[in-house]
C-alpha cells in the first residue's frame, strides 16, 4: 500500500495540483464462453480536483464499465484482472476488495445511476434512503438526519421536501426521482461524483434541468465529476475535459473547447455529426455511423474503428495507432490519418474516389463529410 501511494505521488509531481484521480493502463476483462471480453482495454486518465470530465462513447465502448471500475462496483464473478492501476487521492484503489472500497463509497466516491426508475428502492421511503447515508457517514442522529434530508431535497429542487420524505419512489416523477438520487449521492459530500448517463432515461424536457443541477452542485461543492454519456451535446458546455472511448480504449482526449474546435479522431467527428443541431434545417438527416461497435473478444491488429471509419487506409487495418499528443500536450488522439490534417484530407479523398474505404465500407453515406 505505501509503495503504491508513493508511486502515485511521483507521477503527479509535475503538475501544480495533485490530480485526484489517476488511471494508468487500466484493463477490465470478463471471461466468457467465447474468450475474454476486453470491456476496458488499457485506459489512462488523470483528473484535477474540482474539474469535470466528460466520458463519451457509444453503448459498448466501455465507458460504463470504466466508471464502475473506478468505483469498484463491478461483479467479481468472471472478471479477469489483467493489470493497470487506479489511484484516488494518491491511494491505489483499483484492486481493493469491496469490503475495503466501502470506506470510499458514499463519502469519497459516489454515483448517480442511469435509470432513476430502478435505482431507488421501491419499498423504502425517500427519506430513509437519504437518512441512512447521513447516519452512516456523518454519524447524524435521527432528527438531525431528517432535517438535513429536507435541506438536501430542497437544494436539488424538490418542492415541499418535508412532505416528500414520506413518499415512496413510485409517487415521484422520473425527473424528481433523479433529483432524489442526486441528493442521495451528494449527501455525504463526496469528492468525486460519477454520473452514468444521468439523463438518458428521462424526458427531453427534464434532461437539461438535471444537467444544470449537476453542474451547479459541482460548482458549489468544488467537487470533481465524471459525466458519462453517449451524447456529445450533453458534455459540450458542461465539462472541462472530454475523453472519447471506442472499443474499450480512449481514442481522443482534450480540453472541451479544443476537442470541439480541433477534432482529430474520425470517430469523434462522427459522434459530433450525429448530434442533432438546432441550427440545421428541421428535416435534415442525421449522420449515422455505419456498422456496429466492435465485438471485444478478439481484437485484430489494426485500429478498432477502421471497419467503420471513412478515413481508413491499409495501414489502419494492420497497425494500431498509439494515443499520442501530436499538436499540443493536452490533446491526445489515436489516429494515423487525423481529421483536419493534410494526411486525413488526402485519405478521405482517396476513399471517396474509390467509393469504398480500405476495409471495404461503402462511402455512399458519407457525403456529409465532403463539405
Amino acid at each position, binding site marked *: 500500500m505505501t509503495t503504491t501511494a508513493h508511486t502515485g505521488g511521483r507521477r503527479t509531481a509535475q503538475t501544480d495540483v495533485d490530480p485526484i484521480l489517476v488511471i494508468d493502463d487500466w484493463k*477490465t476483462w*470478463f471471461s466468457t*464462453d467465447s474468450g475474454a*471480453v476486453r*470491456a476496458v482495454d488499457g485506459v489512462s486518465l488523470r483528473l484535477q480536483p474540482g474539474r469535470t470530465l466528460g466520458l463519451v462513447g*457509444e*453503448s*459498448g*465502448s*466501455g*465507458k*460504463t*464499465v470504466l466508471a*464502475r471500475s473506478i468505483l469498484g462496483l*463491478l*461483479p467479481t464473478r468472471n*472478471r479477469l484482472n489483467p493489470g493497470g492501476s487506479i489511484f484516488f487521492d494518491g491511494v491505489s484503489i483499483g484492486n481493493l476488495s469491496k469490503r475495503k472500497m466501502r470506506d470510499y463509497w458514499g463519502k469519497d466516491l459516489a454515483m448517480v445511476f*442511469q*435509470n432513476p426508475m*430502478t435505482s431507488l428502492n421501491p419499498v423504502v421511503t425517500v427519506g430513509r434512503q437519504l437518512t441512512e447515508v447521513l447516519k452512516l457517514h456523518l454519524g447524524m442522529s435521527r432528527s438531525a438526519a431528517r432535517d438535513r434530508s429536507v435541506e438536501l431535497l430542497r437544494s436539488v429542487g424538490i418542492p415541499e421536501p418535508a412532505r416528500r420524505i414520506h413518499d415512496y419512489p413510485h409517487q415521484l416523477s422520473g425527473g424528481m426521482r433523479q433529483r432524489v438520487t442526486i441528493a442521495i449521492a451528494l449527501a455525504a459530500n463526496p469528492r468525486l461524483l460519477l454520473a452514468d*448517463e444521468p439523463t*438518458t*432515461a428521462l424526458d427531453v424536457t427534464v434532461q437539461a434541468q438535471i444537467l444544470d443541477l449537476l453542474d451547479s452542485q459541482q460548482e458549489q461543492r468544488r467537487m470533481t465529476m465524471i459525466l458519462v454519456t*453517449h*451524447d456529445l451535446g450533453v458534455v459540450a458546455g458542461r465539462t472541462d475535459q472530454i475523453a472519447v472511448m471506442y472499443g474499450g480504449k480512449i481514442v481522443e482526449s482534450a480540453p472541451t473547447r479544443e476537442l470541439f474546435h480541433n477534432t482529430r479522431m474520425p470517430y469523434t467527428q*462522427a*459522434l459530433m455529426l*450525429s448530434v442533432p443541431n438546432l441550427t440545421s434545417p428541421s428535416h435534415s438527416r*442525421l*449522420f*449515422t*455511423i455505419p456498422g*456496429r*461497435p466492435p*465485438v*471485444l473478444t478478439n481484437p485484430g491488429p489494426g485500429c478498432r474503428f477502421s471497419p467503420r471509419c471513412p478515413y481508413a487506409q491499409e495501414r489502419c487495418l494492420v497497425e494500431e495507432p498509439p494515443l499520442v499528443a501530436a499538436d499540443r500536450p493536452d490533446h491526445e488522439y489515436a489516429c494515423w490519418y487525423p481529421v483536419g490534417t493534410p494526411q486525413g484530407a488526402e485519405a478521405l479523398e482517396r476513399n471517396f474516389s474509390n467509393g469504398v474505404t480500405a476495409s471495404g465500407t461503402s462511402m455512399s453515406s458519407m457525403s456529409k463529410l465532403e463539405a
Partner: protein
Amino acid sequence: MNEGASTVTTQPDVSKVPAPRSAEPTAKGNTGSGSRRARRRGLGVLFWCSAAWLGLVVLGAIVAPLLPIADPAAQDYRSVAVAPGSPGHLLGTDGLGRDLLARAVFGARISLIITLGAVTIGLVVGGTLGMLAGYFRGTAERVIVAATDAMMAVPALVLLLALMATLGSSVQNLIVGLGLLGVPAFVRLTRANTLVYTKREFIVAARSLGASNWRILAREIVPNILPAVAAYAFLVVGILIIAEGSLSFLGVGVPPPASSWGMMIAEGRDSLRQAPWVSFIPSAFMFLTVLSFNLIGDRFREESDVRETTI
C-alpha cells in the same frame, strides 16, 4: 450489476436513437446461455440413480410373491426385533418377529397400487376438467374453478381424514380419496396450460381450417400439455405417497393384515428406544422413493419448461 456484460453486447448506433435501456439484451443473453447450459448437462447422475431406485421398487413390488423372501405376515418367535444384518433377516425383524425386508417389499406393493391408481384418477379427471374449463371457458369454467378452489380451501389431510372416516378405509376408498385430492392440482395445471395454447397460432389456424373442437382438443392441445402434466404427475405421486403414509400412520389407512410403509413406521414408534430400525427401515424406503419421484418430476418439469420457452 449486469452493466459489465451489457456494454459488450452490440447495440444499434447511438446516433439513431438515444440509448435504449441497457438491461434488456443482457437479461435475454443470460437466460439463453443458462438454458443451453442446462440442456448440455443432460439428465444428470441423480436422475439416473432415482430412476434405478424406482425401477427396483416397482419391479420388487410386482414380483414380490415370487421373490425368495419371507412371508411378510409370518411371525418368527425365535428372532423377535433382531437388528438389520442378522442371518435370515437382512433388514432385521419387528417386535412380532416379522421380516422387515419382506414387509417393506409388500408395503411398496400396497403403497404403489394406491398412489399410482390415485394419480391416474387425478390426472384423468382433473386433466379433463381443466382442459374443458380452459378451452370452452364460460359457465363450465366458473363452476369448475369454484369447486377446485373450495376443495383447496380445506387442508388436504383433514379432507382425507374426514372422507376415510366416513367411507371407511379400504384400498378402493383410499384410491378414490387420494385421487380426489389430486384432482384440483391437475385442474389448475391443465387449465392454465390450455389457456396458453388456445391462443397460439397453430390452434387458431386449425380452427380456421374448420377442425372441430374435439379434434383440436385431442390432436393439438393434449399432446402439447402432456409433457408438463406428466412431469407434474411425478411430483404428485411423491405427495400422495406421503399422504397415504400419513393416513396409515394415523390408523385410517389400509386395513390390516395388509401393511403399508406408513403403518410400519407407526408400529415401530412404540419400540423406538429399543429397536429404532423397525421404524427406520420403512422410513428409508419411503424417503428414497418420494425423493426419487421428486427428483425425476423436477427434472422433467425443467425439461418441459425449456420446451415451452423455445417454441
